[in-house]
């Protein structure tokens, strides 16, 4: 089932017992962020949180942790809520093959109901803004889909980008904005600033659950996130034309913010508790002037808590980081079986692969580091055999403990690129990278004593399914 907006997904979560409404009065700080932080600490299957009684506000509606468990991630993709993680990633990868699915343009976007423009723009009057972590510089929009176009190809639908970036509210109509240089919007901004021009942007808040997944997904520069959303939804993504910029934005958004990144200007921003589990900043970042706000009546403000993993962001960008790497690796190395890139947005990646010849696994590891996402993120790769499930960490640790000769199987390459947010980088943006080859050597690599491996019994797979069915039936009674 494809959800066209956040509200219909919240209703579905509610029906599935995955939406927790907190009706008692809470403080905007520290309660909202602390509750979302706690959702990541209460075990599997954490629900989304919904607050509508926040002290000092008259009509705030705040949704948190919407994607914050594998249960909710499965429901976002229209899958049964208990779908195992490995299966969610496999289904995600299989739907990817349907790309591109053309979007469907609609004219009746509900965010057209209300407007503020020019000097009347006041973000605080529409959004119940609040702080996430203690050391954050202010209040953030951190689950938005930001739309921008290539200034040199403004009519190229594929080069129109939809991405999620951190955005600090620094005034009623001003935002500080972080375009990390490896990301598409930074390429757009670079081209605009070379010409001394402002870069128009449309920032959409409270989007349908698949839009939130694709806007945080590392895709090729000229691939359309809307066409990928269609593939993942199994139905065309509904889009509408934003009134000021004329950009394509999600039809179902709660709020659409339009304005420009002011050319060649930088201003202090941050710090912000990041997906790395560390604060980054303050840095001098670009600034957005907001010229128009469009919003649904009684908008739901969706925010995302992130900090020390795991938090919602780890679920949100887990599978969507695994799949591009899986596809890119398989394109050249069909031996690759599965890719687990769900630790800190793929800073550590576990790859299972068959071996073509001795030394092959290390080549696969090096390729992971030179993919587009790898250039900015992948700093540690663990390569395991084809019969090791990279999502099953005890199996991965077995491979590490039994297969690795540290002197021969750990490769460190110095001075490679990484996002500046990487806490271990020195200087920022530069790091060494490591491959741990935890595969069984094959000829002509004849090291070790691996001749008689023990394997699962042939009947085990069938029994695993049978036990799972028995357990599901027992829990339903």
């Amino acid at each position: 089932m494809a959800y066209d907006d956040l509200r219909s997904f919240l209703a579905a979560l509610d029906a599935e017992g995955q939406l927790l409404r907190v009706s008692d009065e809470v403080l905007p700080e520290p309660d909202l962020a602390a509750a979302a932080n706690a959702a990541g600490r209460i075990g599997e299957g954490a629900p989304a949180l919904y607050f509508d009684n926040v002290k000092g506000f008259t009509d705030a509606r705040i949704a948190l942790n919407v994607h914050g468990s594998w249960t909710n991630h499965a429901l976002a993709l229209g899958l049964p809520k208990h779908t195992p993680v490995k299966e969610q990633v496999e289904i995600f990868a299989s739907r990817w093959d349907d790309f591109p699915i053309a979007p469907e343009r609609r004219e009746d976007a509900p965010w057209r109901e209300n407007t503020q423009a020019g000097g009347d723009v006041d973000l605080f009057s529409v959004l119940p803004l609040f702080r996430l972590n203690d050391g954050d510089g202010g209040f953030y929009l951190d689950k938005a889909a930001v739309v921008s176009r290539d200034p040199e190809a403004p009519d190229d639908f594929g080069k129109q980008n939809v991405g999620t970036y951190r955005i600090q509210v620094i005034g009623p109509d001003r935002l500080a904005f972080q375009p990390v240089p490896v990301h598409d919007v930074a390429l757009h901004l670079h081209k605009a600033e070379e010409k001394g021009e402002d870069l128009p942007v449309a920032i959409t808040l409270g989007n349908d659950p698949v839009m939130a997944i694709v806007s945080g997904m590392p895709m090729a520069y000229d691939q359309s996130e809307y066409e990928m959303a269609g593939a993942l939804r199994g139905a065309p993504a509904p889009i509408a034309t934003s009134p000021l910029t004329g950009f394509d934005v999600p039809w179902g958004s709660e709020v659409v913010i339009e304005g420009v990144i002011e050319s060649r200007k930088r201003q202090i921003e941050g710090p912000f508790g990041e997906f790395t589990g560390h604060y980054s900043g303050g840095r001098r970042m670009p600034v957005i002037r907001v010229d128009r706000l469009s919003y649904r009546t009684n908008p739901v403000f969706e925010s995302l808590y992130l900090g020390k993993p795991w938090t919602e962001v780890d679920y949100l960008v887990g599978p969507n980081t695994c799949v591009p790497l899986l596809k890119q690796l398989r394109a050249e190395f069909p031996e690759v079986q599965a890719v687990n890139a769900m630790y800190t947005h793929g800073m550590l990646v576990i790859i299972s692969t068959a071996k073509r010849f001795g030394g092959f696994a290390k080549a696969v590891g090096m390729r992971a580091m030179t993919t587009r996402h790898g250039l900015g993120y992948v700093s540690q790769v663990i390569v395991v055999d084809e019969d090791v499930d990279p999502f099953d960490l005890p199996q991965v640790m077995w491979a590490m403990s039994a297969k690795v000769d540290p002197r021969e199987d750990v490769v460190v390459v110095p001075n490679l690129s990484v996002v500046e947010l990487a806490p271990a980088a020195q200087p920022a943006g530069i790091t060494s990278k490591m491959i741990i080859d935890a595969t069984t050597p094959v000829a002509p690599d004849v090291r070790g004593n691996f001749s008689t491996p023990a394997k699962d019994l042939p009947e085990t797979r069938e029994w695993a399914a049978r036990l799972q069915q028995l357990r599901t039936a027992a829990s339903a009674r």
Partner: protein
Amino acid sequence: MTTHAACPRCAFDAVRTLAASPVAGVWLVRQCERCLYTWRTTEPVRRTTREAYPEEFRMTPADIENAIEVPTVPPLRQP
């Protein structure tokens, strides 16, 4: 509205009000005019007072002035 209470983070003495609670008199959102630190008056004191503000998050004028630019502003392309 600018007042002269100190910023919890950088101790600058010019602070403005960005927003007031829709329910009158419950809280204000304040912002330092130098480091842009933004806080709500009902937040815990570790976020709202200079005395209790954690050392590791404090900011000096030099920190602001010398903060790295991300991304760097490119050279203007000649027409």
